[in-house]
């Protein structure tokens, strides 16, 4: 089991009302790897990430989370039931650009509720877990406040703690710092850097070149729904194969 890739995407395609947004995507994310996904706006990065946990249903192709196919029950040869789907999604964590915290719950409840409602964890244990994860992202003192009182950077760190609470096989980040004030970006990237140091598997859609360069094991470049470059950062940033990537990198600085 343990040497199965955390995420495997095979021949994934997706269209929105006839317009092809992803074409024949193949991607393997091994356990403990950090994969950064780059590409200009509209290239299909979010759609690819959202196909991994089936928030978008692809038109064809398959996705495996630690060896288990999502969306389709391979044993029984039929689409997954709601229950099977929920159980598979619970093995992935997702962090959104716009945080998407649950505004009616306190910060601590935001972190504790998924283990309680999804995994059936006893409440006291989930609360302890929340306390511990909030400490980890540097928000131990914010446990009892409601999300609307937090800054963007704090909200995003809560969202990371909330996803970690499910002990996912892989953390999916969709432009986690794009909605933040520039002075708040660093605190979120620091938490993500720490996670990669602890061996978490992460797929990160980002425009933070420095982060992609320093933290990733692989960098993937999407252009019009195609992966046109897939390389370790040393090669991606210094000697990319494609002209398109070279132009993209030139525009960055």
């Amino acid at each position, binding site marked *: 089991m343990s040497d199965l890739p955390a995420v495997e995407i095979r021949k994934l395609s997706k269209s929105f009302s006839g317009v092809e947004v992803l074409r024949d995507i193949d991607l393997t994310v091994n356990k403990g790897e950090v994969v950064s996904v780059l590409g200009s706006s509209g290239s299909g990065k979010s759609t690819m990430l959202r196909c991994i946990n089936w928030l978008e249903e692809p038109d064809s192709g398959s996705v495996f989370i630690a060896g288990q196919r999502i969306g389709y029950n391979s044993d029984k040869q039929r689409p997954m039931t709601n229950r099977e789907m929920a159980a598979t999604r619970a093995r992935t964590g997702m962090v959104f650009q716009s945080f998407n915290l649950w505004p009616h719950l306190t910060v601590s409840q935001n972190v504790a509720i998924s283990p309680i409602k999804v995994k059936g964890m006893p409440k006291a244990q989930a609360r302890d877990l929340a306390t511990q994860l909030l400490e980890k992202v540097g928000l131990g003192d914010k446990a009892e406040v409601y999300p609307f009182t937090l800054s963007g950077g704090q909200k995003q760190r809560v969202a990371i703690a*909330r996803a970690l609470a499910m002990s996912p096989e892989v953390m999916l980040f969709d432009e986690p710092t794009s909605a933040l004030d520039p002075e708040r970006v660093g605190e979120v990237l620091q938490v993500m850097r720490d996670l990669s140091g602890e061996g978490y598997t992460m797929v990160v859609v980002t425009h933070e070149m420095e982060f992609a360069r320093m933290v990733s094991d692989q960098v993937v470049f999407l252009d019009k729904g195609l992966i046109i470059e897939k390389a370790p950062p040393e090669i991606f940033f210094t000697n990319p194969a494609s002209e398109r990537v070279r132009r993209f990198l030139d525009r960055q600085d």
Partner: protein
Amino acid sequence: MSEWSIVWEARSTILSGLWLTCWLFTASILGAFMLGCLMLYLLERGGALAWLLRGFINTMRALPFLVLAYLLYYGLSQLGLRMNAVTAGLLAMIIYHGAYFAEILRGSRLVLPPGSIEAAQAHGFMPGSIFLHIILPQLLLRTRPLIGNQLIYALKDTSFLAIITVQELTAAANAVQATYFIPMPAFVVVILLYWAITACLELAVSKAGIFGKARGFENV
């Protein structure tokens, strides 16, 4: 004996009417609220049933409450389904205001940003759990003033039940004024009682605003 002391003498009639009004109101809004939430959940799931429910809700909105009460009390008894007046009245209240609660929540559901729901899906919540723990609490916090209004409409609609012979507050006042020919004092007392209940409701609804305020849903 002054007209006011006659009302005082007849207080047991009025109090029993008041009691029945309070009881009918409480039972019917609790029932209607649960029915409204249930309808919202079924609307959420979609399919043919949701389509039927939309039709049902729109019908209720087009129907005057009194007509529904007549229909359940007289109409059904003609078809052989005889209910006593209180049961018919309670049922009419629950169905009618249930449809309105559903409509209030549905309106708010349409403008609920999808992000919090996607986050719950991504964390492995089942649809029923998402509805109960993520969607419904937010809708309730967002619709507090509308729900408060609806409670007041519901209180006033209970007085229509006098017409199908339910001995609630309005019927009691009417009985007192007709017996002793003192319409003015009898109805003034009733107006004051309705006003007092309304004032309590408004207080409760405004107190409930602290939940929204604490969570940043309201900023007044």
